[in-house]
């Protein structure tokens, strides 16, 4: 399908914000304590990112005046649920991030708010991933791998952002523990992405013109897609196939920026030489890779209706020839 900027921003920034919030929760409850001021700054950053993601979601609606009806189908629509869970998450996060300006920090409301924000972040990320995974017609997305991938990428992007904040502050113990966690998370992300790209390839190969006729007399070749042509501007669920070189190149960029460079940063961090600027570069690299990965997620997805839009290569005639027919030559010779 056609990737759009609002969709990229919503999904990437929501994952990043949720990831940062959950990393803060991990530091508050599980990992060695980091500095309070760093955690508070991280909360503000997470809230700011969530707000930018929320604003971009309005640009995804082409008729925002009907947005007031968006919670009507909570019972069946994952988009309704996404609007609800993301809204609740942003509200709780707003209270926890901005609350210290007027309320005492480290009191009960701060901790309860933090726990609720973490649960809401996890719920919002899960619901957003389910929105894509529960569409059977999107053959590339209809898989638990979509949920795994979006959650893993979101959590990791937040983890790298947190690592950058801590790396700048030179908190050695906290950085070391988070770096070990990010090493494992990056390996998981790499594994899930490889499996997901295989799924995308299988989906692309399993759909062809023969699938779309309901009849066995194969092979079929589309000769007229029905008064439409790439880039199919009124049919946004399909998009022309990406050129092989472009797809391969973008996948290489994802591997480089989301796996190899961040892993290098992690190794340097564990080695004790990589705190500070290097962790910031690691976070920027992972975030850039996340945008490319998400662009591929949308742009390379195969919709079931592709069977009627398929850009099959033209097969040359098996009977045409440049040589004149012997009968014709004989006729001309005898004229």
């Amino acid at each position, binding site marked *: 399908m056609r990737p759009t900027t609002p969709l990229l921003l919503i999904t990437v920034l929501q994952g990043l914000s949720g990831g940062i919030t959950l990393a803060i929760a991990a530091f508050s409850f599980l990992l060695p304590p980091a500095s309070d001021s760093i955690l508070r700054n991280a909360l503000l950053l997470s809230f700011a990112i969530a707000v930018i993601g929320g604003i971009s979601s309005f640009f995804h609606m082409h008729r925002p005046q009907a947005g007031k009806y968006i919670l009507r189908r909570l019972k069946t629509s994952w988009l309704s649920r996404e609007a609800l869970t993301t809204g609740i998450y942003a509200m709780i996060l707003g209270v926890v991030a901005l609350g210290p300006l007027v309320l005492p920090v480290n009191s009960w409301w701060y901790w309860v708010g933090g726990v609720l924000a973490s649960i809401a972040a996890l719920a919002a990320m899960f619901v957003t991933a389910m929105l894509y995974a529960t569409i059977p*017609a999107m053959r590339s997305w209809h898989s638990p791998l979509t949920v795994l991938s979006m959650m893993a990428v979101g959590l990791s992007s937040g983890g790298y952002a947190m690592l950058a904040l801590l790396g700048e502050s030179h908190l050695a113990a906290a950085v070391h523990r988070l770096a070990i966690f990010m090493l494992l998370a990056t390996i998981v992300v790499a594994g899930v992405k490889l499996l997901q790209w295989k799924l995308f390839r299988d989906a692309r190969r399993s759909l062809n013109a023969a699938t779309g006729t309901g*009849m066995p007399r194969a092979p079929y070749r589309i000769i007229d897609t029905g008064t439409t042509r790439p880039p199919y501007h009124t049919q946004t669920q399909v998009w022309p196939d990406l050129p092989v070189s472009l797809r391969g190149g973008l996948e290489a960029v994802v591997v480089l920026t989301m796996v190899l460079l961040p892993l290098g940063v992690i190794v340097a961090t564990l080695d004790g030489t990589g705190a500070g600027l290097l962790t910031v570069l690691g976070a920027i690299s992972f975030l850039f890779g996340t945008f490319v990965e998400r662009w591929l997620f949308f742009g390379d997805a195969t919709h079931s209706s592709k069977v009627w839009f398929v850009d099959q290569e033209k097969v040359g005639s098996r009977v045409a020839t440049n040589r004149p027919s012997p009968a014709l030559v004989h006729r001309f010779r005898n004229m």
Partner: protein
Amino acid sequence: MQLTIITDLNKCVGCKSCQVSCKEHNTAGAFGPVPDNDPYRDPDGMWWNRIVGMETGEYPNAGVLYLPKACMHCYDAPCVPVCPTGASYKRQDNGVVLVDYDSCIGCQLCMWACPYGVREFDEEHGVVKKCTMCIDRLEDESLPDYERQPACVQSCPTHARTFGDLDDPESKVSQLVAQRQGFGLLPELGARPAVHYLPRRPAPVVIDEKDVLRVMEERY
């Protein structure tokens, strides 16, 4: 009741008169329900009914197949439950799937959910549009009976399209589907389309009781 259109692929010659009559009836132009910004120079605008042309088989047994493709008005329309505002809905009284433009936010999730790619996005109005099965004609009591059917059915020069109630076992569409092995597209995706196609093969000979009795009388 489930209104439907059955297309006989033996009779469809790909003339696109159903495609054009759909656009003509539903009004094109920049501000019509089926809009075109530049219809004469760029005909690839919005169409609610598209005819897909295919080559079939291999030489020397090659042929051409035309597949008219519009909303399938599915029994379990996947576009309906995904709509967050309830703008996409299926009418209980006649099974037609419609879009309420006033509540549509233009998120296009229904376009991703539709397995057949028959929903179209109108950038000008910011809403998703689709075949209405000419519901305005069906419910217009001032029209004579023969006009109260979809424009594509009425305009078909070869009578390849038949309109009726698929839930009524006595209706012509039900009998055609039953006798001619009518099929729906992409059944594996579970949408249970109401629109059916009759496969390309010789029509089976229908033998009724009279024929049996006549043969019995002649031979025995």
